[in-house]
């Protein structure tokens, strides 16, 4: 919320780095200025990508007393824009710049029932919440879904910690998550906290609205890095200022335009606020809307896009080109 939103940068020292799965490493940081960590907190980390310091958000999985150590976990996937690779290269003794723990995804204590739903690496955002709900004796279910067991971080940990309150859904063990069934079984008075890929978020949102559950009781966090399609290079044209910029698969459209010194307005950089909106004048290909700012109607119209997270997708056999105007 507003009070904890502004980032204060500080130095942190890497004290541990452990592989949890083939693609996920747990990295433990000791910040110079420890602060208490609330459930739902994340930190932003300045990571070097292509020689430039960029900023990535990672949920705090767990923390030592008074926040003297913070554990995060980074997934390095083929769709990663390069931040995870830099995070995976960190070793004990290295230092990085991080923010204080920021809570944009607060857990509210006091609901009648809770469902915490994690898709894959999304487990990192809800583990702290599950810990709090267990400690206060709340009625909660932790639902953890993924493709295969070896790819699921912390699976043994959450089994031990949450026992019967854990529902595991592993696709290649013949037990995939059925979102309609999950949302259909939600009791009135339930708050659902969700972190996962955009397809999962979209399916849950549709099922939630379909059941006419109170929309404010569906809580989710997105760092804007999950899309409907794998990122690929595309071209942005801005005829009014005569600019043509290629957006690499490893950078966002906003980052590419900033690098080309196009003067753009933005704020959240995660597809929530809508300040980075650009008007789409022409489109060769389609738009991968990765934001949560636009309604379905607005997304379907393809008239605007949030350039901080959303991308263009190539037409068959070609390269995507999006022609825009800016404010």
């Amino acid at each position, binding site marked *: *919320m*507003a009070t904890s939103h502004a980032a204060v940068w500080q130095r942190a020292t890497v004290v541990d780095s452990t592989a949890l799965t083939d693609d996920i490493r747990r990295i433990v940081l000791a910040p110079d200025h420890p602060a208490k960590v609330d459930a739902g907190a994340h930190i932003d980390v300045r990571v070097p990508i292509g020689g430039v310091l960029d900023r990535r958000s990672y949920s705090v999985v767990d923390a030592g007393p008074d926040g003297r150590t913070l554990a995060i976990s980074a997934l390095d996937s083929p769709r990663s824009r390069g931040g995870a690779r830099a995070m995976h290269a960190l070793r004990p003794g290295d230092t990085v710049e991080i923010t204080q723990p920021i809570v944009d*995804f607060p857990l*509210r204590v006091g609901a009648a029932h809770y469902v915490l739903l994690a898709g894959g690496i999304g487990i990192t955002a809800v583990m702290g919440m599950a810990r709090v709900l267990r400690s206060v004796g709340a009625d909660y279910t932790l639902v953890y879904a993924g493709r295969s067991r070896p790819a699921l971080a912390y699976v043994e940990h959450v089994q031990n910690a949450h026992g019967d309150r854990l529902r595991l859904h592993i696709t290649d063990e013949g037990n995939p998550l059925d979102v309609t069934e999950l949302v259909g079984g939600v009791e009135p008075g339930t708050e659902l906290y969700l972190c996962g890929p955009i397809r999962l978020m979209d399916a849950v949102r549709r099922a939630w609205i379909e059941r006419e559950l109170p929309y*404010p009781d569906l809580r989710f966090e997105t760092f804007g890095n999950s899309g409907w399609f794998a990122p690929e290079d595309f071209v942005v044209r801005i005829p009014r200022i005569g600019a043509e910029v290629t957006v690499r698969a490893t950078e966002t459209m906003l980052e590419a335009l900033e690098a080309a010194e196009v003067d753009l307005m933005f704020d959240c950089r995660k597809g929530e606020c*809508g300040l980075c909106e650009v008007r789409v004048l022409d489109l060769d290909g389609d738009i991968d809307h990765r934001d*949560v700012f636009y309604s379905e109607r607005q997304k379907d119209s393809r008239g605007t896009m949030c350039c901080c997270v959303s991308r263009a997708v190539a037409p068959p056999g070609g390269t995507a080109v999006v022609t825009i105007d800016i404010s």
Partner: protein
Amino acid sequence: MKETTVDKILGHPLNAWYVAAWDHEVNRKPLARTVANRPLALYRTEDGDAVALADACWHRLAPLSMGKLEGRDGIRCPYHGILYNSAGRCVSMPAQETINPSATVASFPVVERYRYVWVWLGDAALADPELVPDMHQMDDPEWAGDGLTISVDCNYQLVLDNLMDLTHEEFVHSSSIGQEALSESEFTVHHDERTVTVERWMLGIDAPPFWLKNMRDKFPGFEGKVDRWQIIHFESPTTINIDVGVARAGTGAPQGDRSQGVNGYVMNTISPVTDRSSRYFWAFMRNYRLESQVITTQLRDGVSGVFREDEDMLVAQQAAIDANPDYEFYSLNIDAGGMWVRRLIERQLAAEGRLPAPVAAG
């Protein structure tokens, strides 16, 4: 950690219940109240539940308390119309088709008990309603009375000091409850992890004017000596209930027979507002002549006058503390109760990682 309490004014624990308002003050019109440096918008839902939201809209921090209540449990920001529910979640952003998922304001745990609305500003996972201090005399059918609120420009700890040592009555309240016997009599002090008790008996004394009047309300025409008691019960962090009364001298009050006397409870709970201002909620409850509204009003108004004398002293004391930042406190034997209170609070602050105290400003 240091074990000697030397700070003049203290920070306030956050993992605690503080009174934000009397129950009758919280209704279907938002009320702005600052508790422990946190501005709050207080209101009641249509179902009657009290709500405490951070009084600053997520968007541009406009005070929600200036807004209007809407629907069953909502409050709309008066500036750009963002609508929140009682959990502090945005339910409508008028200028767009979706709701930003991070749009929330803090909704603090609330308990309504003993005619007060209590709020918890610290770790919500620790907000156990069983930790609300015992003030059952406030709404127990065996007790009657009423109280008021004092906004006093001093650190809350100075109010606690004032209530933990009542020898000041001789000097501050000489026309009502003060008498020499207060500073001349012995007292005992006990403490545990959450409470401090100071007990003082004055035997075979003349009743001061306030107590003579009360005795005559119960025993018309009463004359003679009394045994007087003051048993001060502190419960961490800021509640002090004082068992007070007088009985005909030598009728066994110290041994537990109070039938020949009058008994009141001075209920006090102090809510820090800022480091240098406090909201002091008090009531005077009695267990005799319960039917008399006249006595309820007379006692409330009488005690109110007494407490105004305290308020003047406390404000002057805070001003002198701030005007003399290089001077320290020295202690007297009579400060034992207040010093135990300070130590318990300092331990709680240390446990919350919130020491040291606020700097005394010039």
